């Protein structure tokens, strides 16, 4: 499994990132006009303060009373102080998203938001973060449409659909973030669908220091992650495995036991026991042993995504989830050799990383209307997932798992034409 995926760099607050050459004009303009992405709205107390200032101002002008002018000046100065403190509060605060794959549809995901205060001695208080997770559209590019011709109902439906497809969350910095301090806030949500997911830090806001103004600004911090298909329950119906050759057949598949096959660079996730210390010392880089698996029996998975076979989207989703679950189970049992999607080159599954790549592929796989591998015959193809496998899998037809609809909603897996599992 991969480590925590974090943004490569800390994103910094607008107060720091938008630093530019100082000019008095820029300073004055920044005071009266919010910068791009910034939004400042008065709160109840802020509205009260403004109303109070207006009332006192009118009374002051009406009566030429300097006591009222003093009060008005103090109120305005407090408003300025509020702005300065708010700016100091946001200043030099950096954040980054920390996502911990794997993410699975329907399973709770933890999105970490790392915070770091790089101020010298000032702490940061009372900041909140708006997070959004929305699916990255994998479909055809949207065609520009005029909203003038669109019906209100359609628009509402579209908006409702868009809102349903995204998850929103708000994180609060409840405690003080000390100077040079770091903290991590966590947001938990469940992605509804597999696919590419974009997690964004949509906005950062604060009421600090006096709660007069609700100051928010947008950020460009976003992370795209892959959400694997949701695991499904399925029923095995006896696996028909091709007979083992006498004495066992050695293959080039990497495994956890057997003879040394090769040396390769250390990759994240490799067991430390596999490190070849002598070779590492000689080459001054970490090298690990790659061993050949002893067993020869195993399955190849072939997933076909023809729309002709899977006309129903929900059945197709079940197929992808079933395929992913089966792949994981078989890999865990050491019985998965390769996997392929349509006519793509088969992927040998030797390591966890290979399986993850396959699951990444499954996460984004879509139905398509081109017939791949020939249209299966009604007797064999559509019912048993037959067809012509892609190059590289054709010669190893034995123990190849294919999928076919099982009734109106179900999906069945076939091993060399024999039904082995259903979901």
């Amino acid at each position, binding site marked *: 499994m991969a480590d925590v995926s*974090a943004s490569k*760099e800390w994103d910094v607050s607008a107060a720091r990132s938008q630093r530019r050459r100082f000019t008095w004009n820029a300073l004055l303009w920044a005071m009266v006009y919010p910068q791009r992405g910034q939004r400042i709205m008065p709160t*109840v*107390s802020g509205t*009260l303060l403004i109303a*109070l200032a207006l009332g*006192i101002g009118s*009374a002051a*002008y*009406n*009566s*030429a*009373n*300097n*006591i*009222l*002018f*003093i*009060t*008005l*000046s*103090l109120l*305005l*100065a*407090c408003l*300025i*102080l509020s702005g*300065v*403190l708010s700016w100091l509060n946001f200043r030099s605060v950096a954040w980054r998203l920390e996502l911990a794959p794997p993410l699975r549809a329907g399973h709770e995901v933890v999105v970490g938001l790392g915070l770091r205060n790089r101020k*010298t*001695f*000032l*702490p940061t*208080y*009372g900041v*909140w973060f708006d997070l959004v997770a929305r699916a990255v559209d994998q479909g055809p590019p949207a065609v520009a449409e005029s909203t003038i011709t669109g019906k209100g109902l359609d628009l509402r439906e579209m908006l409702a659909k868009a809102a349903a497809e995204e998850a929103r969350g*708000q994180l*609060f*910095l*409840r*405690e*003080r*973030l*000390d*100077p*040079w*301090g*770091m*903290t*991590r*806030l*966590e947001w938990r949500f469940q992605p509804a669908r597999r696919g590419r997911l974009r997690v964004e830090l949509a906005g950062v806001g604060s*009421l*600090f*220091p*006096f*709660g*007069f103004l609700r100051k928010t600004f947008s950020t460009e911090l976003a992370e795209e992650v892959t959400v694997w298909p949701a695991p499904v329950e399925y029923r095995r119906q006896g696996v028909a495995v091709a007979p083992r050759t006498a004495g066992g057949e050695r293959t080039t598949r990497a495994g956890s036991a057997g003879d040394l096959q090769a040396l390769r*660079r250390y990759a994240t996730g490799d067991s430390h026991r596999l490190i070849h210390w002598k070779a590492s010392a000689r080459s001054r*880089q970490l090298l690990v042993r790659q061993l050949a698996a002893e067993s020869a029996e195993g399955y190849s998975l072939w997933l076909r995504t023809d729309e002709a076979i899977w006309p129903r989207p929900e059945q197709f989703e079940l197929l992808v989830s079933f395929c992913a679950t089966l792949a994981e189970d078989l890999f865990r049992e050491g019985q998965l050799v390769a996997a392929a999607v349509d006519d793509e080159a088969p992927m040998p599954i030797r390591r966890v990383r290979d399986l993850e790549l396959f699951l990444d592929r499954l996460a984004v796989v879509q139905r398509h209307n081109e017939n791949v591998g020939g249209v299966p015959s009604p007797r064999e193809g559509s019912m048993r997932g037959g067809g012509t496998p892609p190059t590289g899998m054709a010669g190893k037809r034995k123990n190849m798992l294919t999928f076919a609809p099982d009734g109106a909603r179900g999906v069945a897996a076939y091993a060399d034409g024999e039904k082995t599992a259903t979901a």
Partner: protein
Amino acid sequence: MQMEKKRPQLSLDELHQLKWLLGGVLVLLSVWTVFYLEFDAWTLMGLATVAVSAALVRPDWPALVPAWTHRLVFPAVVAFFIGDLWVTGEVLPAVVRLDILLLLYRGVTYRQKRDDLQVIVLGLFLIVVAGVLTVSLVFAAQILVFTACALGFLLVVTLVESAEKGAARPVAGGLPAWAAHVRWRRLWARVREVTDWRVVALGAALFAGVVAVSALLFLAIPRFQLENSLFLERFASKKARSGFNETIKFGDVTDIQQDTSVAVSVDVTDRTQIPANPYWRMLVLDEYRDGTFRLSALLRRAAFTREFTDTALRGAARPVLGEPVYWTFYLESGISRYLPLLGSFEQLRFRETQNFRFGEELGLVALREEPVTMTAYRVEGQSTGGTLPDPAFAKGLRERKKSTPKSDTLLMLKLGVDAADRANLEQRVREITGGAELPAAEFARRADVWLGRHPYSLSPRIPDGPGDPLVRWMNSAEGGHCELFAGSFVLLARAAGFPARVVTGFKGGTWNAYSGNFTLRNSDAHAWCELFDRSTGAWLRADPTLGAGGTQPDGAKGEAALARRTDRSWSARFDSLRVFWYRRIVNFDQRSQVETLKAVKEATENSGRQLRAALTAMVERIKAWLAGPWDVRRAAKLLALAALLAGAGWAWRNRRSWIFGSGAGRHGAKEDPVRREAGAWLRRISDFGDLIPEALGVTEELQRLRFGAPGTWPEPEPVFQRARQAVRELRRRGRVTPA
């Protein structure tokens, strides 16, 4: 949430306790305005003080109040307000009492956020009303303290709100958890524990900035004269504290003299014009009846004009050549509705529109009502002499035979005593004049001497017996105060055939050396006389009070005269603040704004000019010094200067660790080898440019060692070891590119 803590933090309960404390302090600060507001709200203020203080000491007590009582509060408060309005008929005092009542309620009940805001708004209202009505310097101090507390309070409210966000809200009603066991001493210790002195210092500096910015805004806010005054004053009335009324009983002025508070502050553009012995006239009392001097209805009708509503008034004095002298008076509230003046004047201008009557011949100006706030007015071309020309009275005196017996002219000749006393008075006059007909000035001098046999006393005794009390005192050898002297003098003068009257006001005063103004205190209250001199057609001032010397011609003016009256005491320092407040804040207007801008411009230009001149002179001196013959001593001086500059440069470079280093030098980086080594490792790692993720962890630990408080340090040695490995790894990566 996992938080790396450097210092402890206040818990939510502790924040609530702090909020409760600050809210209570705000309530107390607000209700204490009653001390100088002078409305009848003492009972409510006392009640609020006691109740809120009790709630501060024991925050669990408000929970003992049954919930149903809160439902009765609103109708009860409304009923109180209506009843108050009905009974007193005064809007503003009733509103102030309502405000105090609401503050009292908010101070003793658990508050939500909107209630916290209510406390601030109600408190601000009370303070502003008090400030507008009293224009007191206390307002300045109170609004500053209130603002500081309110900002702190709002800050804590925001922190509480942010700490509560997303958390389960406490159930409303009942005893809140934070109020169950409050120990203020422990909270104080906790607050001290979590406080960083640098943050506190910055907060103080920022608050000073707020004050400075508000001062600048006050100066810069454009002013328009809308000529619409009497804002809140119309909703409140005030009775004079002092005795400067149309009727004066013996002892009234003496009572005022017991009060040493400031009555009038006077600014003058030319201090040399201040007389050595100034008499500030306020009121003329012409009628003597029943042992009391009063302003007769006849004189009031005849001498005063109809009422004006204006900001300016033209007087009887004619303009003189030369630079005009402006006298700016700041008359405190509760003194009188009659304005103190030295004599006749060319023009009098109020800061705000006023309703007033002008007695041109009397040299008096009377406002319609007793001002409830400080009243400022500026007088131009004021006469400072001891005489007051009155041609109208002279004419009336010449034609007195034709005039009615009840004319005001004759009233100033009327003795107001019975026949026996009249005979007694005539006898005394003969003793003074020797039977001769004397000019007014000479009579005044002799009468002054004759009355001098009475010693001065603030607690006089008037002998018992029949007849007029003033005549009885005159015939005795008892001591007396200014009113007795003045009253006796008037009776003697009238008996001698001179029209005479008592004048009340202030005499003397002190020159404040700090603010450069004249200060009159209530203790300077005085009564003296004016007798009419037929030869000059003017009223002649006569002060028969022992040691006053007011009958002598008043010619001395200028610095020498002021030197005797200069006050450099601590009270003068405090009074100078008050005068500054009046001059620069209360009396600030469009004209002052322009003057300030001019002054700032001139000061800037002058400073620039002086700086340039100083720099040029310094360069010239350095050049001359360098051009002079060199010897060892000069070289040593140069070297010492270079060393000094180098030291200053070194100090400047290391200022960061001195100022911002934790503990201000106690744990400075230079002193601590751990900090020094952590800094060295950080520099080494930063040489590699962008940090690799593996180095990031150790970098954070190194930063903690470098800048963090020692209490939060990880074990230094393992961190340095990891840093060493990270640097090694970074170097290796520089040679071997990963696949």
